[in-house]
Every structure is written in structure tokens, then in C-alpha cells.
């Protein structure tokens, strides 16, 4: 029987007195590739913050524990626009920041840490621009560097927040392929937050749809149906297959604007 890494049990999440999601019950297991999708403001980031420990549930429990009872190490890839890059840190220096917690206070990075940094850069194919200032990189390059930074922390779980935001088609597919590689070949447990259904539909293994007052989780085939999406988005939505890919076709909105 699989042991859950993350276990939400009757959890209510929110800020202050305002609850965003109530009675949440779901688990994330080792080796999962979970997509968290939903419109802006639905509560996806709230779930992520609770998992990362920066937000305490208002009610219920959230257990986060490795299989051996130890703590879980998270590698977090934030949205690119949350980062302030006035100073010209190189991509390599940014990736090294992911090691700081493991290095600890009062200690400097050692050769072993730099080796892990180089290894992380190699995994994301960012060696070529590792010496360039992070702020001068393209959107796709920045995203690779941020993923490398998360990998440098040697995480058990990789959490990516809108990793394909603001990217063109080619960059989006490239980043999604990289994330898929990290899951398949590096055996990382992955949680990917996105408001783009198309991005997750053909990449994740499990899907959680988050909407105000609504939460549904399961295998992609179970969750991603026309009926589910039509009810969720209040418009006719059809889910079909084309050349082995899942395609989502949306009609006109019928709800109140």
C-alpha cells in the first residue's frame, strides 16, 4: 500500500477569517505527477502554500511525512515575476541559492555543492548560459534556471507554480518535456500548478481541479471529461483525442458575467 507524502484530511484553507477551500481531502503519493488546475483565485496557490508550510490550515489536518517518517524536502519553482533581479546574479549563482539551506548557516559552499549545482544545470540543459546574468536570460532560460535551483536542493517533491506562464508554444512544450523527464527519469514527485488545462492534460498523471467551493481529484481520464469541465466552467466543453493527444474544445460561456 502506497504511503502518502502529503495528506490533506478535512482541511479548510484560507487567510484570516476567510476560507478559500473547505473540507479538502486528498493525498499526494511518492512518484505522483499531479496537476493542480483552476481559474485564477480558485485556491491553487493556497494549497501550495499550505504544502510548503507557509500557510497553516484553518481547520483539519495536513500531514507531510516521508515514507521513513522523516521530513519531506520541497523544491519550489516560483512564478518568474515574483523574483526581483536588480543585482546581476549569474544563473549559476542563482542555482547555488537552492543549496543554501543544505549548506547551513555560517558555512560556505564547498566543491561538492558546486558539483551538485553543475549537475542540476546539466539536467535542465542550462550549462551554456550558466555564467550569464539571470536577468538577461529569456523566459524559457530563466525557467530552466529556476528549476535547476529547485533541483539543487535535492528535493523529494518538486512544486512548480505556473511554469509556462508568458511563454510561446515552443518554450512551453520544451519546459513541459523537461518536467516530464524529471518525473520519468529522475523519479521526482511533481506538483504542477497551472491555469492552462491544455498544458496539464497531456503531461500529468493525476489531476486536481480547483474552483471556488469545488475540488475534484483523480486520474486524468477520470477527471478530464466534458461533463466535469462543462459544469465547472459553465460552458459547453468537449474533451476529445487527436493523434494520441487530449484536446479540449470550449464553446460559448453561458453563466452570468
Amino acid at each position: 500500500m502506497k504511503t502518502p507524502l502529503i495528506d490533506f484530511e478535512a482541511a479548510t484553507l484560507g487567510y484570516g477569517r476567510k476560507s478559500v477551500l473547505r473540507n479538502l481531502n486528498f493525498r499526494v503519493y511518492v512518484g505522483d505527477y499531479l496537476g493542480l488546475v483552476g481559474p485564477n483565485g480558485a485556491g491553487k496557490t493556497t494549497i501550495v502554500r499550505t504544502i510548503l508550510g507557509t500557510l497553516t490550515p484553518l481547520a483539519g489536518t495536513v500531514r507531510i511525512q516521508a515514507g521513513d517518517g522523516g521530513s519531506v524536502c520541497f523544491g519550489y519553482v516560483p512564478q518568474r515575476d515574483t523574483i526581483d533581479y536588480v543585482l546581476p546574479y549569474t544563473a549559476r549563482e542563482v542555482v547555488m541559492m537552492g543549496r543554501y539551506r543544505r549548506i547551513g548557516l555560517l558555512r560556505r559552499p564547498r566543491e561538492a555543492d558546486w558539483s551538485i549545482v553543475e549537475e542540476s544545470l546539466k539536467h535542465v540543459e542550462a550549462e551554456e548560459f550558466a555564467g550569464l546574468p539571470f536577468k538577461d536570460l529569456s523566459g524559457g532560460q530563466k525557467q530552466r534556471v529556476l528549476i535547476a535551483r529547485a533541483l539543487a536542493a535535492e528535493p523529494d517533491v518538486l512544486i512548480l507554480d505556473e511554469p509556462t506562464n508568458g511563454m510561446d508554444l515552443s518554450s512551453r512544450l520544451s519546459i513541459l518535456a523537461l518536467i516530464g523527464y524529471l518525473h520519468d527519469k529522475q523519479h521526482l514527485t511533481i506538483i504542477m500548478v497551472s491555469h492552462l488545462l491544455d498544458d496539464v492534460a497531456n503531461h500529468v498523471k493525476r489531476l486536481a481541479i480547483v474552483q471556488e467551493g469545488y475540488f475534484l481529484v483523480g486520474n486524468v481520464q477520470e477527471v478530464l471529461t466534458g461533463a466535469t469541465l462543462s459544469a465547472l466552467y459553465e460552458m459547453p466543453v468537449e474533451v476529445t483525442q487527436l493523434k494520441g493527444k487530449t484536446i479540449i474544445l470550449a464553446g460559448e460561456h453561458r453563466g452570468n458575467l
Partner: protein
Amino acid sequence: MGISEFFSTVLTEFPLAFYGSILVGISCAFLGVTVVAKRVVFLGAVLTQVSVLGLAVTFLPYAHIPHTLGSLVFTLGSVMVLSRMLTGKKIPRDAVLGVVFASSVAARILIMQKTPKVETAEIENLLRGDILFVTPELFYLMLGAFIVTMGVYLVFFKEFSYIAFDAETATTQGYKAARWELVFYIMAGVVISFATHMVGDLYVFGFLVLPAVTAMLLVKRVRSIFLVAVLIGAIAPVIGLFLAFQFDFSSSPAIVGVAFVTLGVAWLQQVLRRSQ
């Protein structure tokens, strides 16, 4: 006055002024790199005004507080309040700082209007910060603040850098970003308080900004930016003091003027480099 005569006069007659101006220059330049990187330049201006207000309050008839302590208490009190208010979402950060800035300047003017005339001149001198008459007590307080601030920042350089760059991700890794930022603001507040008392608000604010921006134009590595900013912080005051002696200028504006010219040269160099 020749250069050797200048050094001989200054080091004999005003050694604390000479070393003190370099000390303030280096301290503010060093902190200024993070202040500019965190986009809280206006905070530097606000804290210098709050420090000046604290000085002015110590001249009130019933306020029996040493000037340096009054300035320090006001500055650190503002740091504690602002560090909470600046993270709030209802009022923009700039607006919060603007309110404190305007209120501090207004309060200082009102206080000075109620202090006896004989003390007003002394207050104005203190507020302007005449480096030539810095006391040994203030110099050693500034030296202590400099050593502690530089020491703490350099020992925890990677932590301060990470949190300035990406506080959100640092928090997910277990860093208490708000506490680290508070530590930085407290160190900055102490330095700004003593420095403002020594050299005045213009010098302090100028050196929180000018050397850091100049360094960012000149060099492309983060550690080099700190180094170049500190070098400017050390050299500009010496040149500025020399010019002040030579042409009978006030020392603080002369020193800030030199830092500004350095920035101008750096900017011009970058413009010329781009055009090639």
C-alpha cells in the same frame, strides 16, 4: 592649498572628520547596494529624516535625552513599525514611506519653531551634520556600528542575498524572511542614525544611493558591485573634503557632489560603450 598641505592639516586638526567621513561613506555605500537592490531607496531617505526628527526632539525643554540616543530610538522605532507596514497590501509601500517622510519633516520644523532661538543654530548644525566637529564618542559609536553591520552581513552574506533576491522561495526553504529583513533594517537604521548625526541627512542619503548605482553601471558581478561601491564610499569623501577645503565649500555637499560626478562619468562610459 596643495594636496600634501591638505592631508597634513586635516590629519592634524580634524583626524576624526577625515576618518569619520570615510567610515560613513563606506558604511552607507555597502548598505546602499542592498537598499537599491531591494528597491527601498526611499526608505533610506525616510530613515534619515526620522533620525533628524529624533535629534530635534532631544532639544525640547522636557526631553532630557542624549542627542545620539534620541536619534537612535526614533530611527529604530520607525524601522520596527515600517517593517510591518511595508508588507501590507492595502496601502502602497511608497505611500507609507511618503507619509512618514512628510510627517517627520513637518514635525521637525514645528519642534524647531518651539525651541529657544539660541539652540536653533546648534540644532541646525547638528541636523546638517558638520563632519569637521564630530565628537570622539560619536566616531566610536559609528565605528562600532560599522564593524557589527559589516561583520553580520558578511558572515550571513548568502542568507541576506537569497532573501533580497527571492524572499518567497527562501521562505519555502525554512528561512524566516521577515526576520532576516528586519535584522537588515535594524542594522541600516543604526548606521543611518549615527551617520546622520555625524554628517547630516544629505550625505547619508546620497551615499546610500550614488555609490551603489555607480557600481552597478561599472561592473557586472555582484561581489564586484559591493567592492566598487565601498571603494567609491572611501575615496569620494577624501576628494570631497579636499575640494571643500580648497574652495571653501560645505563638506557634505562637496562630498556628495564628487559621488554624483563619479556616477556621471560611469553613466557616460556606459553610453559610449553601447554606441561602439
